[in-house]
């Protein structure tokens, strides 16, 4: 009896000794600097296998069990395509653009998603795009609050394999001019790269509105509201993985100029003729019992210029914006602090009614004197 217990103790002692010794050796090895972290050298095959095996299983385990939205939705695909162009194509390639040689030097090199996206389920792609991957160059989505944006990229990835160069460009650039005009143009602007940050790729310009109904119409919005929105995006106060990197690249002057440009554009015709009587009532009279004030007391022409005008706005964008506001954990900007509590009092049906009503309203004529 006594002898057996001593036997167990001896085994335990050996285990502890090996663990401590092994740990110390590992630490010494790392400290020695002999292991090369050079991306140029690649991994040992065993390490590569282990990392890949762990990554694949981790994604499978963590991918959400929720059903994706409809991924064949053209609005979603267009939004995803436009974001893919500016955020993903550099490393993952796209029709007409090979994977960048700089990106190919990463370890592991980013996969060409035209051929590799099918290896993952929709939910797995969503999870990777939202959270990124450790020990690779794949970054997480800039905000963790905008699942709707991540799904747009997943929808686009499903469409990607069947796109040729022309179809891809039509989706990702809209009709923004991509080709440089001449040699000097290329020399001075960097040629085709300059269109990446073009607002008009998603929001339209001139007399053309957004290609995707999930993107807001900016034509004729008051400049202070547009400037405020861009600043909020740039500072991460308004969460968006799509808008934040683009807005953060703008200077104070470019923000002012581009806001003034959209303010000066003539209003577009209403996107939808479908009227909504409940939406009209809520927008003009509110619902005192549910403590919902009438929308139009802040969202029509005589309101403060930091408030958006809603007449003629895309219904899908507006409904989505209200839902995002309902789910936001914390209001970081002055206008969100006012609107989010009201948005949370709206039912899903009321959101749909209001979005339909405002989409059917003829937009106001060009705003005069919106400067404060």
């Amino acid at each position, binding site marked *: 009896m006594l002898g057996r217990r001593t036997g167990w103790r001896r085994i335990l002692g050996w285990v502890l000794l090996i663990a401590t010794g092994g740990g110390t050796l590992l630490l010494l090895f790392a400290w020695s600097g002999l292991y090369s972290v050079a991306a140029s050298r690649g991994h040992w095959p065993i390490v590569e296998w282990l990392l890949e095996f762990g990554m694949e299983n981790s994604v499978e385990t963590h991918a959400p069990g929720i059903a994706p939205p409809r991924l064949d939705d053209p609005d979603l695909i267009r939004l995803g395509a436009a974001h893919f162009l500016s955020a993903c194509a550099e490393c993952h390639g796209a029709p007409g653009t090979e994977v960048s040689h700089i990106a190919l030097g990463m370890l592991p090199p980013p996969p060409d998603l035209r051929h590799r996206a099918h290896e993952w389920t929709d939910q797995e792609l969503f999870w990777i795009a939202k959270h990124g991957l450790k020990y690779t160059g794949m970054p997480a989505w800039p905000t963790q609050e905008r699942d709707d944006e991540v799904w747009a990229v997943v929808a686009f990835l499903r469409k990607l394999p069947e796109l040729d160069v022309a179809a891809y460009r039509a989706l990702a650039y809209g009709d923004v001019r991509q080709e440089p005009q001449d040699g000097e143009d290329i020399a001075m602007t960097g040629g085709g790269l300059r269109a990446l940050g073009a607002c008009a790729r998603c929001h339209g310009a001139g007399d053309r509105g957004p290609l995707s109904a999930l993107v807001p119409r900016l034509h004729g919005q008051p400049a202070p509201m547009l400037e405020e929105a861009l600043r909020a995006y740039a500072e991460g106060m308004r969460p968006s993985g799509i808008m934040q990197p683009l807005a953060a690249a703008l200077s104070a002057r470019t923000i002012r100029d581009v806001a003034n440009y959209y303010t000066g554009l003539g209003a577009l015709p209403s996107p939808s003729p479908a009227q909504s009587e409940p939406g009209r009532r809520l927008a003009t009279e509110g619902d*005192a019992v549910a403590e919902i004030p009438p929308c139009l007391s802040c969202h029509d022409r005589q309101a403060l210029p*930091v408030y958006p005008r809603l007449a003629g706005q895309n219904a899908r964008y507006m409904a989505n914006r209200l839902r995002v506001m309902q789910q936001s954990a914390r209001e970081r900007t002055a206008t969100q602090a006012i609107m989010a509590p*009201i948005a949370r009092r709206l039912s899903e049906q009321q959101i749909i009614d209001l979005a339909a009503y405002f989409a059917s309203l003829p937009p106001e004529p060009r705003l005069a004197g919106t400067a404060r």
Partner: protein
Amino acid sequence: MTALQSVLAPSGAEAERIAALAWTLFAGALCVFLVVGAALWIAMRGSAVARRRLAADKAVIVGGIVFPVVVLGALLVYGLSIMRQGIAAIAGPGALHVEVTGEQWWWRVIYRDADGSPIESANEIRIPAGRDVVLTLASADVIHSFWVPNLAGKVDMIPGRRHRLKLAAAKPGIYRGQCAEYCGGAHALMSLEVVALPEADFASWLASARDRAAEPSGEIERRGRDLFLSAGCGSCHAVRGTSAKGEIGPDLTRVGERRYIAAATLPTSRENLARFIVDGQHLKPGNGMPPFRVFSAAELDAVAAYLASLR
């Protein structure tokens, strides 16, 4: 006693009856306390004879059953009769009728014109001293309780029901009240004031309360009015005579003349109005008004100046 909020400083018949009841109950409780104290002393320190008597059946029956039944029964009858007097009291001729609705977390106050049209105010009930006032008490959301201890007893405001409370302030003065039923987060900051004015002052006040808000006189106030309207304040608040017709929050037509804002929480002043507009959620957490940080400092001051001028 001149306490602002106390049962023991009654003003008016209703409150005096309740004060008398309170004193009687205190006195009764004191007697019972003394008798019990004496019995306790006997039980521990009394002579053997006294202790034997205390332990006898007769002492238990008289002291433990008959005495409490008689005393509590008498107090109950007395209390009920006072309650009945309060319920049965018929308002004198020319009584003032006011509707008071408890909302999270403020009081909507509606006077009626001769032709029945409403004159709305909030959180401050002005009444004529010496005249009967009949309050119709209702709730817009959860159970509240209306209690101005110097003037009358406590009456619950139950959703879907209308309760009546008759009271009269014997003399002019300010009487503070409090929501007396827990009604959610800012319950403790749901107070009100009843301001009893001499009859003539009240009559002239009510006549002017009927009016629309006057056109602001100063440059800053006018700018404040424009900002008030364009920032959407009017979607929840009404200022009679302007396009602000909101019904969700308190009527602000005469907010500048009320002694307090935010349901008797902050003294009315330009500074406090400005503080509440931007920081109301810290001053009164959970209240229905979102913070309006969209104003610059000068704009905020203009809006506050406009509100303070509404009197």
